[in-house]
Structure formats: C-alpha cells, structure tokens
C-alpha cells in the first residue's frame, strides 16, 4: 500500500491543501501550526474513520472558519491497483467513495468495507479507530513511546508473519499459558521470589509441624533418658550402699580385734603396776641399807677427823695469849711518850704567843707615834692657811675676769679720749699776763689743755673766750662716748673699791699669789691624809694599849722570857719561837700515832684470841655430839660386816623384781600401745565415715525411688514411641511437600525458560530486521532483544557492546535513543507487515526525532533511507526541514499563511501566534528551504533546551538534560549560559547541578 497523493478541504486549519507524495521518501516541512499534523491526521481519518458519523472525532475534523464540510481525497496503491478515495465528513450525511483504477466506484458502506479490506483492518470507532495502524503512524509526541504497545493491533498479523519467517517457530497455546500460569501461581504460593518458603503455605505449616513434633520427641526422649539416668543412679547407689555395708562389717571385725588387744594390754598394765611397786620397794630397801651403812661409816669418820682438828687450835691459843701481853706493854709506853710531847708543845705555844704579842706591841706603838706626828704637822699648815686667807680677804676681790673688764673699760676710755683728743683743740699757755682760766680752771704758763668741749676761757678778767672745738656735734658725741667710758671705768673701779686699773692689776696679782700658796698648803694637808686623822689617832692609841695588855697577860704564864727591846728583836724572837712550836707539835703528833697503833694491835689480838677460843669450844661441842651419834649408829646398824651383808641382800632382791618388771614391759611394748590407740581412733573415724556415707546413699536412694515411683497416669516410654512415630510421620509429610515444592518450582522454571526460548525463536526475524535498521544509527555492535510470552510483546531492550553487556530496557534509554530504537522497531514491523500490502507500507513520522542530536540524525537519515530502499514509503513531517536536508527526500512545503488570515487568529484552537510570525519573518531570508514561510527552527538550541526542560516539568539535572539533548558539553554549556543570561532559566541544587525554568519551583 502506498499513498500517492492527498487533497484536504475544509479540514480544520486547511481550506484546501494538496500534496503529492514521493513513492519512497517525502519530507513535509512547515512551521508550527502550518497544518502538517492536521494533514496526516486527515489522511488517517480518511483511511480508517467512516465518513458517516457524529463522534467527537468527526466533529474534530470540522473547520469553523470555512463553510464547507471537511473532505479528504486520497490516491493510493493497493493490491497492485491505484485507488481514489474521497470522504466527506458531514455528520450523518457523510459520504465515501472508493474508485479503483479502471473500475466501478464503490460508495459509502461498500466503499468503507472495501477500504477496510484493502487496509486489512476491522472497522472501528473511537480509540480503536485512532489506534489503527499506530505502528506505522507516529503522531507528534509519540515517537518516544515503546513501539510494542502500538504493535498490539497488528499482533496477530505480525505473529503470523513471524511464524512464516521462522522455520521452527512455534507458538504456545492458550492452554500452554494456562498450565504455565497455574504452575507459576502454585509455585509462588509456596515459595517467595528469594526461594524462601512462603508463610501460610502447606509447606510452611508442615515445617512448623515437623519442628514441633521433633521438639516433642526430644522432650519425650529427655524424659525417658532422665528416668533411665535416675534408675541407673539408683542402681549405682544401691551397689554403693551394699559395698558400704560390707565395708562396715569389716570395720566392725577390725574394731573387735582391737578391743581384744586392748583388753590384754590392760591386764599387762595392771601387772606392770604391781611389779613396779615391788621393784620400788626392793629398791627402797636397798637404798635404806646403803644409807645406814653410809651414815654409820660417816659418823665414825667424822669423830676421827674432828678429834684430829682440835690439837692445833690449842697451840694457837697459847701463841695468841703471849702476843697479847707484849702488845699491852707497848701501849703503856706509847701513852707515856704521848703525855711528854703534849706538855712540851703547850709550853712552846705559850712562848710563841708571847713573842707575837711583843711584836704587836711594838708595831702599835710605832703606828701611834706616826699618827701623832701627822696631827702636829696638820695643825701648823692650818694655821698658815688661816693667815693667808685673812690676807686674801683683805685684798680687793679682783679676779682675772674683772681685771680684764677693767682693762677693757680703760682701753675703751683711752680710745674714746684719743678720739676726743683728735678733735680737741690744743691749748697751751705759753705766756700769760693774766690768769688764764679755762673753764674756770686756771692755767699756768706752760700748761696745756686739750679742749674737747666748748669752754670759756678767761684771760684775766676781762677776756673771756669761748672755744668750741671740732665744731658741730661730733665732738660732743665723742665727748659723750669718752665720758661714758670714763663712767663705766669708774663704776667698775668703784665697785672694787680701787682707784685705778693698775691698782686692780696689783690686787689681782696679790690674790693670785695668795691662792697659789694656799693651794700648796692644801696639797700638803691632803698628803698627810687629814680626813679621819682624829679617829685614826684614837684607834692607834687604843691598839697600843690592847697590845700592851696582851703582852702583860701572856708574860705571866711564861717564865724565863727575855723581853725584846724593839720591834726587830721582837720579830726575831717570834720567829724562833714559832719554829720551836712547830717541832714540838710534830713530836706530839708522832707520839699520838704510835699510841693508837699499839692500842689497835692489842685490840686485834684480843678479838683473834676470842674467836679461836669460841671455835675451839664449838668443835669440842660438835665432837661430843658426833661421838654420841656414832655410838648410837653403831648400836643401831652394827659393825661394818653386818652392814655389808645387809646391803648385798637388798641388792639381790632389787635385781629380781627389776627383771620381772622388764619382762612385763616388754610384753606391753609388743602390743604396741601407741599404735593401738591410733588404730582405734582411725577405725572410729572410718566407722563414722562409713555411717555418713551410708546415710547419704540411703537418702539418695530414697529420693531416686520417689522419682521413679510412677503414678500410672502417663507412660513415658509409650509417649516416646508415639512422639517418635509422630515426628517421623511429620517428617514424611514434610519431605513429600518439599519434593512437590521442588517439582513445582522446577516446572515453573522450565515453563518460564521454554516460554522465553519460544518467544526468542518467534521474534528472531523481527529482531534481525530491527538490528538491520539500528545499525546505521548505533553501529554494528548494537542489538535489541524483545520478548514474546505468547500473549504480547514486551521487554524491548537495547544492548550496546560499547556500553557493556547488560541490555538497557527501553524505559531507561535517553529520549533520543528511545525515538531511534522505536523508529527501527516500527520500520522492522512495517517491513514484516508489508508482505500483506504489496510489500509496501507508508510510515508516517511526525516530528519523530525531536531529541536526536546532529550526529544521530544523520544515522536516522540512513535508517530511513534504508527503509525506503527496502520498499517502505517514508513520510517525514518536520517543522525544521533543514534537519533533513541530507535525507534526500522529496520536500513538500506547507505555509503558515495557508489558514485564513485574521480569522485564524480568532479561532479557538491555538492559532499561530503573532510573536511566532515575527520570529518566522526574521528567519525568512536565511532559509534555503523551498518554503514560502520557513519555520524559525523551533529546534534552535535554546528552544530545544527549553522544550525538553518543560517536558521534565520545568526542572531537570544538567547531566540528564544534556544526555537527552544529545549535546556535547560545549554546546550545552553555551546554550545554558545564554538562557541564564536572558533570565529564562535559573540554576538549582542537585548532583551535577540542575536548571529550572525561571519562575518555576
């Protein structure tokens, strides 16, 4: 089937449009709203919509601006014949006519029926009508849809064609599918997608039951084994108990044996006691005999020794008595000597004392005379001094200071007079004829006066002169100063009662000399130590008197003493007497010592003699007693022989009893008394331990018996048997279900596998053809897969070796790839289906490559060209025909102006917008396209960018957008930058960044 030409009248925007199609490739270009889509819609409606009808689709054909009814006239080839079809959509009065080349025209129903037959479709309305030939009719905006959807209407034919082409291709039957579906359902009811057992399934229940049964079996086993264990323990305990009891018997026997030994030991111990007593007695007897012998012998010997010791003592008494007599005599002699020495010493002491008294008397007398001499001298000095002081008192009391003051006053007077004199007028009477009186004082010739004061001078009586020396007052002042100095001197002199300063100096000299003499006297007086001299004199007098008395007193007791004449003699005499005294005292001391020594010696001898005598007396007493004792013992124990015999007898008795005791002790030792005691204790311990063990075992046995006592309400062994059987049965059920589950899974898997395998065989010719069409676009490495499950095609995917081996499902492909793959599928499908249509089908592609980039577009061109070369009629519609300039298609131009001017603007259905028109105009001259109003290229990069962004809801990631645009980064970034600059888009967040239409969220 091939469309040759179409004429559209009053169809929506078209008033009248006629287009002739190329047999192979036609490119219909025109701007938006120029009616390209309307043109292909009109052709579609002519082919598939009945002319008569009032449906929405019918109404949509109308064009309000035009008065005529919509008409579509088609010329097409089918079944080797050229047909002319005319449809007039005028509601219920719509008409259709179909005229074959060289044949009768068919009208209305007949025409419609024939047309449907030629097109191989069932008459349809509504959506079904719209979907007719959707597989070759790509409406604007549908190019990116999965083409397997649109293939459904042609599925039957397609399957038939595929079966014709695929030699071994068979098709699963509905029953196949039903069975496969059942197995899938059952399998999925048992297992989840991960192969786990599904909860609630029979298998899951069986697993739970089996597990529960196993648990019960385990519990029953445990119960039984616990009982068995208790029984085993009990048996063990009973055996142990028997052993313990046997052991007890053995211990008892041992205990009895020990008791026997103990008894023997006790008997022996009794005997030992008795014999020990005997032996003790024997030993006592022996000791007594020996003691008697010993004591008797000792007494005899003691007497002899004592007698021997008395003789030397008597000799000593004699010797001591003699010595004492000598000593007594010596004492008498010593006492006499002592008395003589004492008298001599007393006499010497008296003479010495007298001599000393003489010395004292002379010394005191001397002292007295010296003191008396000093007293006389002091009296003389004092008298002299009194005279001097009288002189002094008579002399004016001018001291050096006063003298100095006088001298100073005189000096001042002299000075003042000098000053006065210097001013004064000197007057000398050199010759006088008359008395010259000056100031009343008569001057003789030769007298001179110094006039210091105004003075009246009279010469004679008649002459009176007044002289005023110095003139002025200074003379007066000097006069006054001289007067004052005179007054001061006079006063001082007056005070002292002196006439002149020289007198004062003389008086002062006199006083000074007197003072010097006085001081000399005083010094002499001081040298004599006059202070206390009277008392000293008194004392010396008294001392002298005492010394005299002493001499007198001592002289009376001493005879023949030559009294000394002076002190020196006295002193020599005293010295000699002192020496005599010293010698006498020495002699007296020696005599005393001798006497004491003689007395001590005598006393010593007295006490020695007394001691010796006392000792002798004691010994004699002792000897008397010893002799009495000796005699008593000899009487008692007999003589030595008798005593020896008795001792020997006692010794023999002692030996006999000792031997017996030793024998008994040896027997005791043989019985091992210590060991016996330890054994007894040990055995007691063992018996106690044994009893404890027995008690413990008995308790344990009681407990075990209590445990094992059955009440007959359950039989654990029967329970176990039942539990085992149940577990086994549950296990078998489970195993059966598992096997069935495995079998069902296997079936499901096999059905799925075989379905896929069948599908692949069936779709192979289709896939092969698609791959042929893909090659110009994606290269030889690209291939497609498409599944057919017996009911429908699905799973369209594209595999590209360059991008890995995993196929990309159609849905995830980019917009461009979707269009291209969908086109290849359509071309392949159309090629397959063309067999029913004289090996040709028209393929309408309305704006079908909006997302394809430049490089791909050339591939698309080759793909479309390939389709054309393989017999398909390709009709491409584009608002941007420049994109297809390399296609080599026959171009058809539609202009935007074709709809009616002005009125079109008023039309409610999206008329051409003014701004668009303006844009078109601006591009007008750039276009080489043979169109009167070349569209502006809505596919200009910026517009494509915005279009696609809008298609994404106004917001899209850069990466996705660029991929879908099929642009390089440079182009993308450039366009994006322009749009950002013009404010049409804004940047957003997101990985790789996003862009949004300005103003959209």
């Amino acid at each position: 089937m091939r469309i040759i030409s179409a004429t559209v009248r009053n169809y929506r925007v078209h008033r009248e449009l006629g287009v002739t199609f190329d047999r192979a490739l036609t490119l219909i270009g025109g701007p938006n709203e120029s009616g390209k889509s309307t043109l292909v819609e009109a052709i579609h409606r002519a082919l598939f919509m009945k002319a008569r009808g009032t449906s929405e689709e019918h109404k949509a054909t109308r064009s309000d601006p035009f008065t005529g009814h919509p008409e579509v006239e088609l010329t097409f080839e089918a079944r080797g014949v050229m047909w002319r079809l005319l449809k007039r959509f005028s509601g219920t009065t719509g008409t259709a006519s179909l005229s074959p080349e060289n044949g009768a025209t068919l009208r209305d129903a007949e025409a419609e029926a024939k047309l449907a037959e030629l097109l191989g479709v069932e008459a349809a309305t509504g959506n079904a009508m719209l979907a007719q030939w959707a597989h070759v009719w790509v409406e604007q905006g549908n190019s990116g849809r999965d083409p397997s959807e649109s293939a459904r209407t042609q599925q039957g034919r397609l399957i038939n064609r595929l079966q014709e082409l695929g030699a071994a291709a068979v098709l699963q039957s509905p029953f196949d599918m039903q069975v496969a579906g059942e197995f899938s359902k059952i399998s999925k009811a048992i297992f989840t997608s991960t192969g786990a057992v599904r909860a609630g399934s029979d298998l899951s229940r069986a697993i739970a039951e089996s597990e529960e049964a196993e648990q019960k079996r385990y519990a029953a086993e445990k119960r039984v084994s616990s009982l068995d264990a208790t029984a085993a323990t009990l048996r063990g305990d009973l055996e142990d108990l028997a052993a313990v009891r046997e052991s007890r018997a053995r211990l008892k026997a041992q205990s009895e044996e020990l008791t026997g030994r103990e008894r023997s030991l006790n008997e022996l111990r009794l005997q030992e006691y008795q014999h020990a007593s005997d032996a003790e007695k024997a030993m006592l007897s022996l000791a007594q005999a020996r003691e008697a012998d010993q004591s008797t012998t000792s007494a005899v010997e003691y007497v002899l020794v004592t007698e021997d010791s008395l003789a030397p003592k008597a000799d000593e008494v004699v010797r001591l008595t003699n010595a004492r007599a000598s000593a007594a005599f010596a004492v008498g002699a010593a006492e006499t000597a002592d008395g003589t020495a004492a008298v001599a010493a007393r006499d010497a002491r008296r003479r010495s004392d007298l001599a000393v008294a003489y010395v004292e008397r002379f010394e005191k007398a001397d002292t007295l005379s010296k003191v008396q001499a000093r007293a006389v001298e002091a009296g003389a000095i004092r008298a002299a001094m009194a005279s001097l002081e009288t002189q002094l008192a008579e002399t004016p009391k001018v001291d050096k200071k006063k003298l100095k003051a006088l001298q100073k006053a005189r000096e001042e007077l002299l000075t003042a007079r000098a000053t006065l004199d210097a001013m004064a007028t000197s007057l000398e009477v050199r010759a006088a004829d008359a008395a010259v009186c000056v100031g009343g004082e008569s001057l003789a010739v030769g007298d001179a006066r110094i006039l210091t004061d105004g003075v009246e001078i009279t010469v004679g009586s008649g002459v009176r002169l007044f002289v005023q020396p110095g003139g002025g007052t200074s003379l007066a002042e000097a006069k006054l100063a001289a007067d004052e100095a005179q007054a001061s001197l006079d006063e001082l002199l007056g005070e002292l009662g002196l006439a002149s300063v020289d007198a004062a100096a003389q008086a002062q000299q006199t006083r000074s000399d007197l003072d010097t003499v006085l001081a000399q006297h005083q010094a002499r007086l001081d040298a004599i130590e006059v202070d206390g001299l009277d008392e000293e004199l008194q004392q010396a007098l008294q001392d002298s008197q005492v010394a005299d008395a002493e001499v007198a007193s001592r002289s009376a007791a001493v005879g023949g003493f030559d009294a000394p004449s002076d002190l020196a003699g006295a002193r020599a005499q005293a010295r000699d007497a002192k020496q005599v005294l010293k010698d006498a005292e020495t002699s007296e001391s020696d005599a005393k010592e001798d006497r004491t020594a003689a007395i001590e010696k005598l006393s010593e001898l007295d006490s020695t003699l007394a001691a010796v005598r006392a000792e002798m007396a004691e010994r004699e007493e002792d000897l008397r007693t010893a002799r009495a004792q000796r005699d008593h013992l000899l009487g008692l124990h007999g003589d030595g022989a008798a005593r020896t015999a008795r001792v020997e007898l006692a010794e023999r008795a002692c030996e006999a009893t000792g031997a017996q005791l030793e024998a008994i002790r040896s027997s005791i030792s043989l019985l091992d008394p210590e060991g016996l005691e330890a054994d007894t204790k040990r055995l007691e311990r063992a018996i106690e331990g044994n009893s404890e063990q027995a008690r413990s075992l008995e308790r344990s046995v009681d407990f075990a018996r209590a445990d094992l006592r059955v009440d007959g309400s359950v039989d654990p062994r029967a329970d176990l048997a039942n539990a085992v059987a149940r577990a086994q049965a549950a296990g078998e059920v489970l195993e059966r279900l598992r096997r069935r589950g495995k079998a069902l899974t296997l079936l499901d898997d096999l059905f799925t596998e075989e379905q896929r395998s069948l599908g692949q065989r069936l779709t192979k010719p289709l896939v092969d053809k698609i791959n042929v069409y893909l090659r110009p676009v994606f290269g030889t490495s690209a291939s497609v897969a498409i599944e057919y499950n017996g009911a429908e095609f699905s799973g369209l995917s594209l595999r590209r070796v360059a991008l890995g081996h995993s196929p990309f499902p159609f849905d995830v492909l980019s917009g461009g790839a979707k269009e291209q793959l969908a086109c290849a599928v359509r071309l392949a499908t159309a090629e397959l289906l063309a067999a029913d249509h004289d090996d040709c089908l028209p393929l309408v592609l309305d704006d079908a490559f909006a997302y394809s980039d430049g490089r791909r577009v050339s591939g698309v061109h080759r793909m479309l060209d390939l389709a054309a070369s393989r017999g398909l009629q390709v009709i491409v519609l584009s608002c941007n025909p420049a994109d297809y300039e390399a296609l080599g298609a026959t171009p058809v131009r539609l202009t935007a102006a074709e709809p009616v001017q002005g009125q079109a603007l008023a039309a409610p259905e999206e008329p051409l917008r003014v701004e668009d028109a303006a844009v078109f105009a601006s591009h007008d001259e750039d276009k080489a396209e043979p169109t009167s109003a070349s569209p502006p290229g809505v596919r200009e990069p910026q517009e494509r960018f915005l279009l696609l962004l809008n298609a994404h809801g106004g917001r899209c990631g850069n990466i996705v957008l660029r991929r879908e645009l099929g642009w390089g980064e440079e182009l993308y970034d450039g366009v994006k930058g322009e749009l950002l600059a013009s404010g049409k888009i804004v940047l957003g967040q997101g990985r790789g960044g996003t862009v949004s239409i300005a103003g959209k969220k």
Partner: protein
Amino acid sequence: MTVTFIHTADWQCGKPFAGISDEQKRVPLQKARIRTIQRMGKIAADHDAAFILVAGDLFDSTSPLQGTVSEACSAIGKLGVPVYVIPGNHDHGGEEALWTQEFFLREQRDLAPNLRVLLNAQPVIESGAVLLPCPLLRKHEAADTTGWLRSVPALGEAPSDAPRIVIAHGSIQDFGIRQDDDESDGGSPNSIDLALLPRGAYDYIALGDWHGAKKVSDIAWYSGTPEQDRFAKGDDYAAGSVLVVRATRGQPPQVTRHSTGEMGWHEIDHVFGADADLAALEARIRGCVGDRAGSDLLKLSLSGYLGLEAASALERTIESQTARLIRLKLVNETVIMPADEELDKLTHRQSDPLIARVATRLVEMARAQTDEAHTARVALRELYAASRNR
C-alpha cells in the same frame, strides 16, 4: 512326674502402637492384647495346665498406665491357674519398675492373687515343678541371666522327680533378634548362652523376647507373643500363639502350639513390571484382607515401575486400604514414570508446544541418574495431572 503348663511371653500389654498414625485405630490392637489373655484361660483349662509361665515382657513398659495394669491384672485373675511371671527387658525388675510399686501390688492383690512375679534368681517349687527364674533386673543386662544355673543350684526340699523349668528372657547366642524398622526398641542385647547350662540338668527352658514361636533346642523354646504385634520377620515367623508344655524330669518336653491371636498381620511384597500388575496387587490384597475393615494390618512393599495413570489408580487403592486397614505400612519404592504412551501424550502434544517442550526436558531429567530425577518424575506427574484436564 509330668507337669503340664502353658509357656507364653511378650504380652506387652500397653504397647502404644505409635506407628499407627490414626490414634483411634491403636485401641483395637491394645484391647486385643488383653483379650488374648482371656483366651489362654480356656487353653489352660482344656489341657489341664497346672500354671502359666510368662517369660518376660508382660507389660510393654516399666511404667504402664494404671488402666493397662488393671486390665491385665483383671484378665490374669480370671485365668484360673497360677501365673508365674519374670520381668523382661520391657518391664524389667529394676528399681524403677512397676513390680514393686504400690498400685501394681494393690491391683495384683485385688484382681490377680494368682499372679506371682519372680524377681529373684532362686528356685521356686510350685505345683510339682521346680521353677528356675532368670529375671531381668534392668533393660540391658550385661551378664547372662542364666549364669546362676551353670552349676545346678541347691534345690532344697524339691522332689527329685520334679521337672526343672528354666524361665528366661533374651536372645540366645546363635539367634539374634533383628527388630523391624519402626518396631525397634534398640533390640534386646540380653544374651543367653544355653550351651553353658549343664546337659540333663534342666527339663525345659521357657524363653521370651522373640515374638514368634520357635524351638531353639530340644528343651528350649521361644513361645512368641500370643497376639502378634509387629509384621512377620521371615517365613517361619509364628506369632499369635502359646505353647502347651508337658515336662517330665529327665525326659524331653512335649510341646504343642495353640493359636491365640485374633488380629490379621499381613505382608505383601509386590513388584510392578507393567501397569497391568496393579490388578494382581489388588487381588493379593483382597486375598489377605478380604472385605474386612478395622481388623487387619498390612505391610505393603512395592517396587518396580508404574505409569502415571496406573500410579493414580494405585493411589486410590492405597487410599482405600489405608481406611480399611488398622494399619497400612507402605514401603513404596515404585518408580512412577509415565508410560511411553503417556509420555507421548505430553511430549508430542502438538497443540500445546510449551507443555510438550517442558515435558521433554523433564523426561530427560527423569531418566538421568541424578538427584533431580526424582524431582523430575514428581514434576512429570504434576504436569501430567495438569495436562489431563484437557
């Protein structure tokens, strides 16, 4: 002097029959074990037996339910003759055993005064015979319980012509007891060496433990259980009877077997060569069980190959028999493989190519000797069943 008595053993009263999944069906088997005691009374009376010897395992457990104890005592009490019992491995006389428990002693006193449990290995002179019990005092006795008889014990005041009867429980040297799979109680290792007993010293050895009646020497017999309780072991397995023994001092005993069992225990081993063999199996089952229900047990061992349709038919037969029988113990090793024509129906299914392809692959897997083969066969059956619907 000749003494007639009944030798029996292994009553195993209170046996749970756990292998029977339907608990209701266990009851008839348990009741039958009591009824068989009652039947012994008539045999004893018929043969003028002086007493009955039970050579161990009167009870199935050392701790039977009170009801079981009471029922057994009641049945024993009605036997009319003294009953001498030794404990066996199931009801051994250990400390935990029921024999010394108060409840048993009370029931024995009240219901079965003629019952005497011989717990000690010492001669008992009774009814003109010397009984030489060899009781088991624990489940597994390492020592031979007849050890004490290897030299003839002092028999005291026993008449010299009184027959000497040994009573023991366990397996004899050359006759080990092989237990059935699901009846296994670990076997009885209690080993008895009869050869070590002095020849001529004893006149009869009454053995228990082996559940079929069996003569093991001139004087030694296993009596077997009076009521069969497990599937037969071997062709000469003679369960469900008691022995009437006439023992005379110094002479071989005269032993006769008397049936006491009432439950039907059957065993069929069947090999399927072809699908037609299913009919033969049904005939064999009918031959055993007839048209009875609730009174038979069948151990059915199946092997060979069956087609899918025949396998389905077999399943129906099994379903019926499972209901009718007290127990159907099935050991089914039959390989269920679609028959060739069945396989063809699947693999050559022109109208449903998918099913055909899946079936073809399953057939390949089923024929391979792999673990998957079994799964594949099950899958084939499932597929067959699913496909048969059209």
